[in-house]
């Protein structure tokens, strides 16, 4: 019986994907996301698929982190505030060498450390456990504030969901970040326009969303959240934002369930677990997309 790692990496030359390429890492996030959700009978595949390029670009091209030294003091901090997409971060960490890829098969499993929402306990590379929405940006504000007080240059990134921005705590944190001039803090919104019962528009409208962030004292831009080059450029501008006196937000427009046609923009796939024929069909579509 082939190992989890062999199964995920088969189809790449010599079974070794080039994880320095964000399109490859994004594909691996989808492939493992599908596999992990299938094995665990878990939820949130739609959210994992929408955030794939964001996480991939962060781990390949943006974050100053070292898998051999996960706690080096000058590292950049990533907080996955939308903790339900934890498998995306777990996959990125495993594929970039923080822990063995084989361990990903223990996601949700009894006795494992890879809990359904991203957990820091026993998982090298994860800064903070999240799961209840609305906490991650505030924690990021505190980290960025600490960096500023120390005169340090390391960056803090918080990845949020759009529905998550219904939480009042997010806006408390937004006010605070702007007040303290935290220009080394970057928020990224995985703006997939869907929540768990229906669209963002029909739940609590966020538009004009970019304007709202500006009105809260942030520098803001919008980008195609599935275009790795556009994301790299946006993160470049976020990095150059240091010294501006304002925190930075990237509104990454994405598609929930991106990569599998019958999952895209389909509210069912917030919770639904890919099993049986649906799993096979999703797998077939992803295989065809392999970079």
């Amino acid at each position, binding site marked *: 019986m082939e190992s989890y790692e062999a199964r995920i990496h088969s189809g790449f030359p010599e079974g070794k994907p080039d994880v320095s390429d964000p399109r490859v890492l994004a594909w691996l996030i989808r492939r493992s996301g599908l596999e992990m959700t299938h094995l665990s009978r878990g939820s949130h595949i739609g959210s994992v698929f929408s955030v794939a390029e964001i996480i991939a670009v962060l781990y390949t091209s943006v974050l100053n982190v070292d898998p051999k030294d996960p706690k080096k003091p000058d590292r950049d901090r990533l907080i996955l505030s939308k903790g339900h997409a934890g498998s995306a971060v777990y996959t990125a960490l495993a594929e970039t060498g923080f822990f063995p890829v084989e361990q990903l098969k223990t996601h949700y499993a009894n006795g494992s450390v890879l809990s359904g929402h991203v957990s820091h306990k026993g998982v090298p590379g994860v800064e*903070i456990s999240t*799961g*209840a929405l609305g906490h991650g940006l505030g*924690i990021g*504000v*505190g980290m*960025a504030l600490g960096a500023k007080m120390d005169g340090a240059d390391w960056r803090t990134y918080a990845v949020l969901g759009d529905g998550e921005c219904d939480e009042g*705590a997010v806006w*408390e944190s937004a006010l*605070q970040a702007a007040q303290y001039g935290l220009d080394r803090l970057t928020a990224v919104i995985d703006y997939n326009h869907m929540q768990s019962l229906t669209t963002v528009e029909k739940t609590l409208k966020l538009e004009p969303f970019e304007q709202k962030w500006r009105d809260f004292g942030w520098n803001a831009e919008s980008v195609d959240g599935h275009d790795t080059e556009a994301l790299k450029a946006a993160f470049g501008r976020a990095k150059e934002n240091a010294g501006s006196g304002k925190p930075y937000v990237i509104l990454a427009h994405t598609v929930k369930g991106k990569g599998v046609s019958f999952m895209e923009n389909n509210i069912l796939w917030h919770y639904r677990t890919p099993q049986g024929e649906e799993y096979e069909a999703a797998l077939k579509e992803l295989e065809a997309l392999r970079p």
Partner: protein
Amino acid sequence: MRDTFARVLKEEMERNDRIVLMTGDLGFGVLRPLWERFPERMINAGIAEQGMVSMAAGLAATGRTVIVYSIGNFPTLRPLEQVRNDCAYHGADVKIICVGGGFVYGSLGMSHHATEDMSVMRAIPGVTCFTPGDPAETEAVTRVMLRRKGTCYLRLGRGNEPKVHPSAVKDWVFPKALTLREGTDIALLSAGGILTQAVDAAERLAAKGISAKVVSFPCLKPLDEETVRELLAAFRGLVTVEENTVTGGFGSAVCEIAAEEGSGCRVRRIGLRDCFATVVGDQQYLRQVYEMDGAAIAAKAEELLK
């Protein structure tokens, strides 16, 4: 207690430059000496407690001890999930400070009555809960708290309370209870600023020839179980006293041990009996109305001894 806390905090901030103070836009008079002395280590988070507590956890993660200061229920009930998930679960070095435990802000009404915090904070794993009984205990507890790592809750009274301990509490051993008064017929156990009422009750009982021991518990969690067991073994009856609901707080903690010990010693809990204080009045007035003052405690003790 509040002013003692502020004085001790200032001294500790002098010797430890990693202590940062955050407030939810409160503490105007009390904190002014601190923000004047350490402007670069003082953050006003605004009236935004959830954001403040998440921020405290993140700041603590950069190697700091973060004091989160507010009044009443605002630093606990309002941001409770943040205290639980962001601080306690991560072992964050954050100290949640409540000024105005119990009925300190009596006449302001129920929104400002902290009467469930002892129960709620006790239930969160990983939160050390301090309930000093007077300014002397506050000094001892504050120093210990600031020199231990981890999430803590410090429930203070107000300013200008009388000292109950005749002198400074020196060399306090965490988390030991402190005997204020020896006695042989019954023991009165107190947690928090309501200690004055327990002492008053002991005096009333003494006038009737009843000898009451008074023990203060400056630490609610972890509870000094050894002392509780000794008291359960030595007395026929104990009365617990707290300016908090009788559900789930100090009295309940003592009852948990009593039930497990099965020693035959009976416990009566003085506290708010699962109700809101809806009458208008100051702290002492409310204590009287809700049967938590010295007279009520003494009456309960006498009843228990019959």
